[in-house]
């Protein structure tokens, strides 16, 4: 301890204090302050740049997602449209078929009715013709048969017989 105190030089201490104060002042003013400021500035700049890059990346992602969504929507819409078209086509065809069927049925019915009418008309005409013909023939037969008195009587008798039998 004695040795230490003996070695302690007050003059050197004062010189050191003066030098250190001046050095502190000079270094802070001309070196540390500008250096610290520049470092902080640079770090903030880097941080900002990173943040911006991150934001840009996120934005890109959003954009991409939007695009994907739009594409999907478009695809879905197209599918829906196609489906609708198909459905419409099917309905139209079905309706057309039904209508055609109905038309055909009506036509057939009409045809059938006409045929029946014609048939009945033909039958009636035929009946009339046959009747006329029978009467003509009967006239001719009757005229010939009933030329004599006896015949007329036989016929009447025959008829009467039939009536009695009934």
């Amino acid at each position: 301890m004695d040795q230490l105190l003996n070695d302690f030089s007050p003059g050197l201490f004062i010189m050191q204090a003066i030098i250190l104060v001046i050095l502190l002042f000079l270094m802070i003013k001309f070196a540390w302050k500008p250096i610290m400021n520049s470092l902080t500035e640079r770090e903030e700049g880097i941080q900002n740049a990173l943040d911006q890059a991150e934001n840009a990346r996120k934005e890109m992602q959003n954009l991409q997602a939007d695009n994907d969504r739009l594409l999907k929507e478009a695809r879905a819409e197209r599918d829906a449209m196609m489906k609708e078209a198909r459905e419409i086509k099917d309905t139209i065809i079905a309706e057309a078929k039904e209508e055609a069927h109905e038309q055909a049925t009506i036509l057939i019915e009409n045809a059938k009715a006409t045929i029946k009418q014609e048939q009945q008309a033909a039958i009636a005409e035929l009946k009339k013709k046959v009747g006329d013909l029978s009467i003509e023939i009967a006239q001719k037969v009757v005229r010939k048969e009933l030329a004599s008195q006896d015949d007329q009587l036989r016929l009447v008798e025959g008829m009467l017989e039939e009536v009695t039998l009934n």
Partner: protein
Amino acid sequence: MTIAKKPIYFLTVLAIVFSSFTAFAGGGETSGKEGQINTQEGINAYIKHHLADSHDFTLFSYTNDAGERKHVGFPLPVIVWTSKGLKTFMSSAFHHNDDGHVVVEKDGVKLAKIHSKIYELEEGAEHVSFDEHHHATNAHKALDFSITKSVMGMLLAGLLMFLGFGSLARGYKKGAIPTGVGRVLEPLVLYVRDEIARPNIGEKHYRKFMGFLLTVFFFIWILNLMGLTPLGFNVTGQIAVTVCLALFTFIIVQFSGNKDYWKHIFWMPNVPIPMKIILAPIEVLGMLTKPFALLIRLFANMTAGHFVVMSLIALMITLKSQFGAVGSTGLSLALALFISVIEILVAFLQAFIFTMLSSLFIGMAVEEHDHH
């Protein structure tokens, strides 16, 4: 640590080569006849001489053919405050004498240099007389503001710092990325900021103290490294220098201490009143021991480092009789190289620890307690 390997090797080799050279060549007048150092006492005296501050800058000394002692180096200005005011002259006036035999008379004031200290002779005395403990009886120490080797070292370190970091600061004006020397210096600044100041002081307050911490860190580190060069500075091994550095830390800590800090010292919260009274003097003592530990740690480490390196170099002389010239030199070289490499680490470590603890103490002073 990102320091290229090459400069360390280079520095080490240089340090070894030159310090061995100085040991061979011998020092001042204290080291026996013809400057030869070949005794244990001579070596001890030489080491002691080296560890002390010096008033002239001597690279090495030798004895020429005519038997004259020659010193290669240059004198430094001596500035002393004496009883008759400020006196200045060059240290060459002492003719490298360090035991008080050469008396310089300056405007009626007689001055002598004894073991690197300037003494003022009392009125009427012509020569310094010593008692049996080799203390001067008729002279007293003068207040010595000389530009000694240590002061020169500090100025040099300051200049280096100012040029290096000044250029780094200017470099930022040209672009955000430093070029040249700045590329090496910037990571060091970042290291001090991110590894020392920020974690210990806290995000909120650290900026205020960056100037002091950076200055102290690089100042100590550069001076420690300069101590490893053959120039033979031992600035951080001067107790006055470490006292001054620690005092600055002490003052800064006390002036930045907040209400909580003082409350924890004088009136410790959350303990019974008798304990508060007992704790106060302990805390006050703790306030003083912290910087004291700082100054002793730095001083002791650097002094010890120089002492060990020089002792190992001296092995080539002390072990010469046992191992022969080649053996002892080889042994001394290997050991000194090993210790010098460790000293390079210690040079950084001590600067780091000093700054670390300073920021820790500052951090304790500015810390905001929210637990009561």
